[in-house]
């Protein structure tokens, strides 16, 4: 990352997009409001001072602890974190974007939260978003073809959620 200078221009271009930064971490990151993620990415891709023309990876981290004793000591409220790793081919620098989502939309168990899709910015996001949807349960609004990619189409639940339980039976195959 080339220092925080671009953050001011970003703030001006997408007001309220950046909600926090951590520039001391091993991989410095910028926290983005979930609703603004597509606009922020579009700006970072297009603006000449950043030019992040490539998306390396999208990850969803589930911050949830089932054990109430451990959860009390965890120091965070249960939430889902989306992590975007960006890369600029010309400048050879990377940038990490993070965004906090609720674990379930409107607190309804089983209803995945929604976030704008970035397929329009980087085509590679197509498969990456499908994978996050499949395994972590995040709905990307505006994705052209959001379906499961690694699990079978009729699979239930999101395996990378911390409270996921293997099904007892899948088409006659014992699960656990």
């Amino acid at each position: 990352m080339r220092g925080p200078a671009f953050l001011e221009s970003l703030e001006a271009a997408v007001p309220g997009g950046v909600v926090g930064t951590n520039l001391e971490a091993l991989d410095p990151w910028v926290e983005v409001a979930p609703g603004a993620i597509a606009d922020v990415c579009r700006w970072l891709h297009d603006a000449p001072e950043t030019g992040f023309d490539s998306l390396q990876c999208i990850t969803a981290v589930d911050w949830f602890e089932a054990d109430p004793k451990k959860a009390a000591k965890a120091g965070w409220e249960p939430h889902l974190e989306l992590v975007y790793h960006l890369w600029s081919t010309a400048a050879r620098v990377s940038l990490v974007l993070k965004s906090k989502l609720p674990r379930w939309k409107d607190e309804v168990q089983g209803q995945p939260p929604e976030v704008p899709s970035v397929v329009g910015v980087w085509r590679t996001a197509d498969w990456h978003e499908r994978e996050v949807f499949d395994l972590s349960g995040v709905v990307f609004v505006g994705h052209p073809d959001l379906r499961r990619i690694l699990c079978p189409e009729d699979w239930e639940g999101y395996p990378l959620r911390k409270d996921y339980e293997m099904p007892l039976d899948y088409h006659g195959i014992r699960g656990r």
Partner: protein
Amino acid sequence: MSQVIDDDPRIIEFDVRTDEMLVNMGPQHPSTHGVLRLVLRTDGEIVSEIEPHIGYLHRCAEKIGENVSARQFIPYTDRMDYLAAMNMNLGWSLAVEKLMGLQVTEKARHLRVLISEFSRIASHLVGMGAYGLDLGTFSPFLYAFREREKILDLFEEACGARLTYSYITVGGLTADLPPGWLARCEAFLDQFEPVIREYHTLLTTNAIFVKRTAGIGVLSPEMAINYGCSGPVLRGSGVDQDMRRDGESIYTAMYDGYAFEVAVMKNGHYPQDHVYPAVPADAVLGDCWHRFFVRMLEVVQSMDLVRQAIDRYSACSGPLGEPVKVAEKLPKGDVYLETECPKGQMGFYLVGDGTAIPWRVRARSSSFSNLSVLAELCHGCLIADVPAIVGSLDIVMGEIDR
């Protein structure tokens, strides 16, 4: 009609009216490199749409990673790109070392370069041999596997395994090389060097091979970057990027003092450090031939690097260092690291929460992104070109499905 056939075989297809047909290729099709299923929408011989279906090898490696310690995860990385398991071990080890703030000894560093570059040769040999098979020539496969077998024998001597090594590990390597290994390695390199010329005769300059690959499946640099392509697929399109040179300092420091030139076409020509065959007249930058040729250049480049590593490694007098304990605690925090694997840039993201077991493990697969461009590449090509394009991407399903 006859003059139309002479011009372009594709044009006649539009003369003869045919129905649209869905053709299923795979998951057991031999040229899909594992268990990849492609659904082709065809109009005669022309593919109008292609839809890859993946996930047949999905083992939820990321979930497994949340249940074992960082060192215990090493064998699972072996099973991602099983043709270059050493490079997978290295990628994961470096990511964990980055989080822990560890630095390996000088001797371990040179041994890691030696082993991972050697593994790159083995992986590219499979890519080359299997590509020949895809295009209907059997013999290059035998020549490639003959040499790869010798590399596997050397790896077996070093760590006891032929495919899933778990040799490079967090904090160093599991063992030092056995006595006499370096001499045998050098003997292999001396014997292997002239063989590469045979490969060029068999495939690179072979008239049929050139006809099947030159100008087929052209991937523009913009599209390659937009689709997150990496490795030989990206460099085959003329984008000058190699993580060994451009990556993060913890990774590039490994190659400090090593001389190598990134295998990419710059100003109309490839690196001139060795004598290579000329680029055929029909080849277009970004086509199947160029992707294949970049791999062949990297075989020679890796051979040079292995030779340099042998010299540096044998000059090291210090200890190799001990790997970390199996239940070594991880600090809080998250790191992401990409390394240049034979197939492309393999990234590992890991979140530590203060215990020995990572909170989250993420593997960014290079083949996954490389394969996602297939639908775009195959649009409007001939059915017979589909195996040529899939083979030129050199994917491995274990890494895509994880």
